[in-house]
């Protein structure tokens, strides 16, 4: 694995709340105090309302924390930027551009297209979309569109890759294929990667560390190191043990919530 010196993320006392339409303030994330090492693959897992997407959007710079801060390589994150590439569950490819133009978008708006033209082809090849350069997004299957979205984020050579349930909308078979592709790309490039997921298996299969998050209060409940060698098998005893452990944490948190609910 290529070790990358950049892509070091620190969170210090981060808290984020939203005002709902009815005027109530909801704390979406609190007490975040953590570090993500360069080149690490992190999964954020937890039930809805645990603040995992908020975490990701804060790192992306799409929203700003109320308190505390995120830093990337020591520099506070104050807004969105190309060095933190984002891929959503919905590929959100620009439908008016071809696949090639979508992937080239980042380079074009940054004025680097002429210099780095070859990168576009390289990344299209990397995600296995050769021959589809001239296709429009609506002509692609869900898995292919998601590959294109990945290439579009990677072409900027981001220090951090942010994935918001990237494979959530894909069928099980495609999802497993995409997970393997993602691991391959990550191992080649060594980009710090933070992925939000609902899928415990996916988190264990891919991650170095799993941030298990719980709602009410929305925070990181525990950080679990995945010490299983790669390539991983989904049915090894270690894998299953870890799975049970995570489910227990999530389940326990869920029950505690239920108790509060019924009181």
């Amino acid at each position, binding site marked *: 694995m290529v070790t990358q010196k950049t892509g070091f993320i620190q969170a210090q006392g981060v808290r984020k709340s939203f005002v709902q339409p009815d005027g109530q303030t909801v704390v979406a994330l609190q007490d975040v105090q953590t570090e993500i090492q360069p080149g690490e693959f992190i999964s954020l897992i937890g039930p809805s309302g645990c603040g995992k997407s908020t975490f990701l959007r804060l790192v992306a710079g799409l929203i700003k924390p109320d308190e505390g801060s995120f830093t990337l390589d020591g520099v506070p994150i104050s*807004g969105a930027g*190309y060095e*933190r*590439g984002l891929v959503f569950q919905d590929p*959100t490819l620009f439908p008016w551009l071809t696949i090639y133009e979508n992937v080239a*978008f980042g380079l074009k*708006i940054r004025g680097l297209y002429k210099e780095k033209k070859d990168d576009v082809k390289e990344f299209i090849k990397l995600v296995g979309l050769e021959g589809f350069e001239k296709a429009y997004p*609506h002509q692609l299957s869900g898995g292919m569109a998601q590959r294109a979205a990945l290439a579009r984020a990677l072409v900027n050579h981001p220090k951090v890759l942010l994935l918001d349930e990237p494979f959530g909308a894909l069928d099980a078979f495609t999802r497993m294929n995409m997970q393997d592709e993602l691991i391959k790309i990550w191992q080649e490039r060594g980009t710090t990667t933070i992925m939000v997921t609902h899928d415990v298996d996916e988190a264990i299969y891919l991650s170095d560390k799993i941030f298990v998050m719980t709602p009410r209060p929305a925070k990181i409940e525990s950080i679990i190191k995945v010490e299983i060698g790669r390539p991983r098998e989904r049915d090894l005893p270690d894998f299953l043990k870890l799975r049970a452990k995570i489910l227990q944490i999530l389940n326990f948190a869920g029950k505690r919530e239920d108790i509060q609910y019924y009181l």
Partner: protein
Amino acid sequence: MQKSFDYRTLIPTLSAVAALLVHLLVPNSPKYTQKQVPYFTIALIIIIAVTLVIAFASLFNERLRKKYAFKSWFIATFILFLNLLNLATLKLMILQSIYFPSPDRILKVYVEEWPFLLKCLGYSLRLLATGYLIGAVLGISTGIMVGWSKKWSYWVNPLIKLVGPIPSTAWVPIALVTFPTSFQASVFLIALAVWFPTTVLTSSGISNVQNAYFEVSSTLGARTIQKIFKVALPAAMPSIFIGIFNGTSASFITLMTAEMLGVKFGIGWYINWQREMLSYANVYAGLIVIALTFSLIITLMFRIRDRVLGWQKGVIKW
């Protein structure tokens, strides 16, 4: 050879031959006092020749054959309509001849007055293009500003809502006294007619663009101006086109009204002038010119739209 012949390809020719026979064999109405002109005969001979050439060519070209065979009933019926019209006017004079001239008379107008008609058409197109371009450019710019910025929307939206729905022809009295020439007044009216629908649909198109597109583009390094022109504008293009199309029909109406009210030398002015002189053959000639021109403009716009919006899945067809 036998297989590649479709009898339908000869139907338009037969219809034209029938029309020619009726025209040549049935005597003119005794009430018809004007000098006989040969134009309808010539036109029918040309139609026969052209339809025969197409029918012959379609023996060798399957696509042309299918298309032409499909259209043949319509074309034949249209020629039949001309035939019946000729019967009702020149031959039997069932219709009042002053208001319903025979095809001959209308063709005569084109033969004798085509330079003047062309000049009128040129004047109309110049007026239309000037007003249209101003209206479309202003409409798209206003739409972008209102759709993008809350501040602009706050100040400009009420104005659009209040002023926009007024048919632009209702501004005629004000336009005529405000602008030094009637040409400028008409440009203003046409621009206004195009501006309103373009603005409304551009702004609604832009404010309906999925936020995710903006989020993705900002994580790809886009600045605000790039989000407007590289994301919002292309994403809103389908809506903008609908606005422009609505504006187009509004601009035709306004153009005709403006010309009938006082702009000199337009095709609308020509029709109005000929009507006052009771030269209805010229009125029809003018109407046909308008119909062909406007439908050509609309067709061109569809072509442009299909090209620009080729990325859309199953583009809405009009």
